[in-house]
């Protein structure tokens, strides 16, 4: 049997020396550089990979989208949250003066391994001046920036008394300007790259367009996306959208020659499009139910986002995701073109024109 040895003063001194040395080496949880402790830890990095201090980091619940906790990166760029909902989103929000683009980490799970690294990219600081058509500045207008890389909103800033707001634009972005005056139509710029440190946006007066979306049986179609486009001068300019309420009603602003599109994210009815100027009286947008089509994408990356083009009406559907095996059931017209892109971004998109055949599942991307 091993005998337990007594702790002599000499051994105790050696032990204390060892522990002290480890603490000075920065062992996690010890010494002056101990990282913040919590249920979820991470680090903020600048574009060269160096740690970045003083950056606000926000944690949101993945289900409710509610703000759960705020933290700030310490002198070594580290941060920690005390709470971590099972599904969550994290947002790093550097000050605009840093010239860095805020960044999201979306759809994380508490079980995701490792320390969360939030690497920030440099952007282009840009001052946006918002006016109405007559040139009067518009305070309290919202300037919204969407990062073109992940399609997430990275800034929502209100204009000041001079109608100005400064944001940091990513190298690919979409930008929305939305006035506090509900009669001024929103202005959207999409798929843009920064070209100047100053940007002027003049908001047009709009007219309210109200109506209902209904099925061919007259039933209201709740949850449909009704989207407005200005088609003046041969250009297409997006004006915004509304979601149809339980009674199928919607209301949005149009300007110029306004074109409405109604899209079902579930693809349970066919998309529809209308030129508002050609319609009279209360708008009742009737959507064709189409016929069911079951499709399956084959290949190395079958899970895809699928858009369906109605050849007769010349309309694309909402882009719906297949299941992991590449299957999707949608309502379609008889002659359609299917456009599918792999959800994992690997592999090429496929596009195929087909005529729907009753009952027969459509297989796409099949190797001969």
């Amino acid at each position, binding site marked *: 049997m091993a005998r337990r040895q007594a702790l002599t003063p000499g051994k105790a001194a050696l032990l204390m020396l060892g522990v002290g040395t480890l603490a000075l080496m920065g062992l996690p949880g010890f010494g002056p550089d101990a990282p913040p402790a919590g249920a979820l830890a991470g680090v903020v990095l600048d574009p060269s990979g160096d740690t970045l201090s003083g950056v606000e980091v926000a944690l949101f619940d993945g289900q409710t989208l509610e703000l759960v906790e705020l933290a700030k990166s310490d002198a070594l760029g580290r941060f920690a949250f005390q709470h971590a909902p099972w599904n969550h989103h994290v947002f790093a929000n550097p000050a605009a003066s840093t010239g860095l683009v805020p960044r999201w980490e979306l759809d994380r799970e508490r079980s995701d391994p490792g320390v969360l690294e939030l690497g920030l990219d440099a952007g282009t600081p840009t001052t946006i001046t918002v006016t109405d058509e007559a040139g009067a500045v518009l305070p309290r207008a919202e300037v919204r920036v969407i990062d073109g890389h992940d399609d997430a909103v990275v800034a929502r800033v209100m204009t000041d008394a001079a109608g100005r707001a400064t944001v940091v634009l990513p190298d690919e972005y*979409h930008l929305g300007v939305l006035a506090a005056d509900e009669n001024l139509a929103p202005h959207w710029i*999409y798929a843009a790259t920064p070209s100047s440190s100053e940007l002027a946006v003049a908001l047009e007066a709009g007219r309210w367009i109200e109506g209902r979306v209904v099925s061919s049986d007259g039933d209201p179609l709740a949850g449909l996306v009704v989207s407005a486009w200005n088609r003046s001068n041969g250009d297409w300019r997006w004006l915004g959208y509304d979601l149809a309420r339980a009674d199928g009603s*919607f209301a949005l602003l149009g300007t110029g020659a306004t074109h409405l599109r109604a899209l079902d994210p579930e693809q349970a009815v066919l998309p529809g499009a209308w030129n508002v100027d050609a319609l009279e009286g209360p708008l009742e947008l009737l959507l064709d139910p189409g016929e069911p089509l079951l499709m399956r994408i084959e290949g190395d990356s079958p899970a895809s986002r699928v858009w369906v083009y109605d050849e007769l009406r010349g309309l694309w559907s909402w882009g719906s995701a297949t299941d992991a095996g590449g299957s999707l059931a949608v309502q379609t017209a008889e002659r359609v073109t299917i456009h599918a892109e792999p959800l994992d971004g690997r592999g090429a998109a496929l596009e195929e024109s087909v005529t729907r055949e009753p009952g027969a599942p459509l297989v796409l991307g099949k190797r001969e």
Partner: protein
Amino acid sequence: MQRSTRLFLSLFGCVACASFATAAIARDAERAAALERARVEQVLVLSERTARMLGQLHDVPDLVFVHGAEEGR
């Protein structure tokens, strides 16, 4: 068939063929442009999720940006 008739038919065929090909190219280009618009439209609609979260962070009133939508959407 006379030579002039054959020549005329050949030329007519070429012109018809070219017109058809041009129309098909224009149709494909319009379809591709329409797909880009549909894609952008979807991106902007779906970005609402992150916009709502940022609204809490930046204290931006939601009703400013969702024109015509019911409260709390």
